[in-house]
C-alpha cells in the first residue's frame, strides 16, 4: 500500500491513476495513522512552496513525514514540488524553510539564452548520472514532462541521479537512501514515467 500525501496542492489523482494502472494499492490521505500503515510514501504537488509548507504544518504532516522518512526510513518519492520541499530552504516568493531531508536550496531557474521561457513546461531529456532505483542501471536518456520555475540546488553531489539541460543543467532527480525525488512528473511522462513508477513500486 502506497500513501499519496494529500496536503491540498496539485493533482493527486494522476498519481493514484498511474498506481492503479500498474496495479498497486494506494490511498490519497493526510491521516497520520494511514501514513504510518503504508509501505511507501509519495509526496506529489504543484504550486507555491510557502503555501505548501504552511499546509503541511497545519495538517501536522511535518512530524509524521520526518518520522516515517527519516527514522522509519520508508521508501519515499517526492514529485515536483514534493522534491523541492525536501530542501532546507526555498527562495520562491520570499524565503521559506523546507523539510530539510536533503541538503540544498530551491532557486529560480536562470537559463542562459532568450529562447528559454519560464516556466519550463514540456518534455525534456533526463540524463541519468548514476545507477539508482528509478533508472536502474539503464543510463540511456529518458524523456519526461516538466512544469516548474524553480529548481533544487543540491549540496551533496552524490545525491544527484539525473540532470536536465534547459539553458544550463539543473538537477532533475535525487536519491539518498530511502528518499527519491524527481523534478519532472513520472505520472505524466507516459512510457518512461510508467517504467520509473514500476521500479519505485517494486523497490
Amino acid at each position, binding site marked *: 500500500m502506497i500513501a499519496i500525501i494529500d496536503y491540498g496542492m496539485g493533482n493527486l*489523482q494522476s498519481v493514484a491513476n498511474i498506481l492503479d494502472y500498474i496495479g498497486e494499492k494506494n490511498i490519497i490521505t493526510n491521516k497520520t495513522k494511514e501514513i504510518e500503515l503504508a509501505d511507501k510514501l509519495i509526496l506529489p504537488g504543484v504550486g507555491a512552496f510557502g503555501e505548501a509548507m504552511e499546509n503541511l504544518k497545519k495538517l501536522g504532516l511535518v512530524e509524521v513525514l520526518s518520522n516515517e522518512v527519516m527514522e522509519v526510513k520508508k521508501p519515499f518519492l517526492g514529485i515536483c514540488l514534493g522534491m523541492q520541499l525536501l530542501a532546507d530552504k526555498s527562495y520562491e516568493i520570499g524565503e521559506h524553510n523546507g523539510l530539510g531531508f536533503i541538503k540544498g536550496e530551491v532557486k529560480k531557474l536562470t537559463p542562459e539564452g532568450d529562447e528559454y*521561457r519560464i516556466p519550463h513546461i514540456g518534455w525534456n531529456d533526463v540524463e541519468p548520472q548514476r545507477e539508482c532505483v528509478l533508472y536502474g542501471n539503464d543510463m540511456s536518456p529518458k524523456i519526461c514532462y516538466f512544469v516548474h520555475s524553480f529548481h533544487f540546488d543540491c549540496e551533496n553531489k552524490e545525491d544527484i541521479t539525473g540532470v536536465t539541460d534547459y539553458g544550463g543543467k539543473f538537477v532533475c532527480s535525487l536519491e539518498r537512501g530511502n528518499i527519491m525525488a524527481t523534478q519532472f512528473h513520472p505520472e505524466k511522462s507516459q512510457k518512461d514515467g510508467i517504467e520509473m513508477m514500476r521500479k519505485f513500486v517494486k523497490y
Partner: protein
Amino acid sequence: MLKKRLIACLIIKDGQIVQSKHFSEFLVVGNAIMAVEHFNAWAIDEIILLDINREKNYDFFRPDVNYDNTLTDFDQLIKYVSKKSFVPLCAGGGIRSVEDIRRYIKMGADKITINTVAIETPEIITEGAKVFGSQCIVISIDAKRQTDGTHKVMKGFGKIDTGMDVVGWAKKVEELGAGEIFLTSIDEDGSMRGYDIALVKTVASAVDIPVIASGGVGDWKHLVEGIKEGGASAVSVGNKFHFTEHSTMHAKNFMKQNGIEVR
C-alpha cells in the same frame, strides 16, 4: 533539449467529439472515449478537452461501438480520460469560478483553460495562479483578423468582439499570472489552410510564456510552420486527427524529419 509539443484538442459537444469550422459549424466526428484510447497508444504529448456544450445534454453512447453509457457529464469525462492517459490533460469550457477550476482538477485535469471568464473577471487568473500555480492556468484566446492585419480578442464562442487587441491582452494575462496561452485563429479554424502565422508570431514574440498555436491544420507541414515561423512552443491539432489513422505518429515523424525536436 526541450521538445516541441504536439497537442490533441478534443472539442466536446453533447458528449461527442465535434469538428469545428470558424466556431460556427459543428460536425460530430466521433466518440470521446474511443479517441482517448487511441491517443494514449499513440504519440500525443498532451490532451486538451474543451466542452462547448452549454445545455448539458450528454450522450457518450454510440450504439455502433458498444461502450457503456456510464459517463453522465463533462466532469466524468475528465475523470475517465485522466485514468487512461499518462500525459498532461488540460480541461476547459464552462469555468466561471475558482471552484470550477478546483472541480476540474479534482476530476484529474492537470491544467485548466479559461477564456470568456478571464476577460470578464481577470482576477480569476491571478487567484487561480495563486491557488493552483501558474502552470495550471492556460488562457485561451480566440483571435479574429482585422482588415489592417491586427487581431482582436473575441469572447463567447468567438461571437462577441471585446475590442481588445490580442497582443495587449496576451501581455496582460502573462502579467496576471497565466502559465500558457492557447491561441486560436477563428478565421483559420477548420480551414485546413494552416495556422495564422502572423498571429502566432506576434503573440509568441510579445510574451515569455509558452504559446500553443491552434486552428487551421490541414497538412503536417503546418505544424512545422507553426513552430519554425510562428515561434510556438506547442502545436494543437483538432480536426485533422479525427480522420487519419495513426495520425499522431505520422505528424511526429514529419516534424522530426523537418528538424524539430519532438518526443
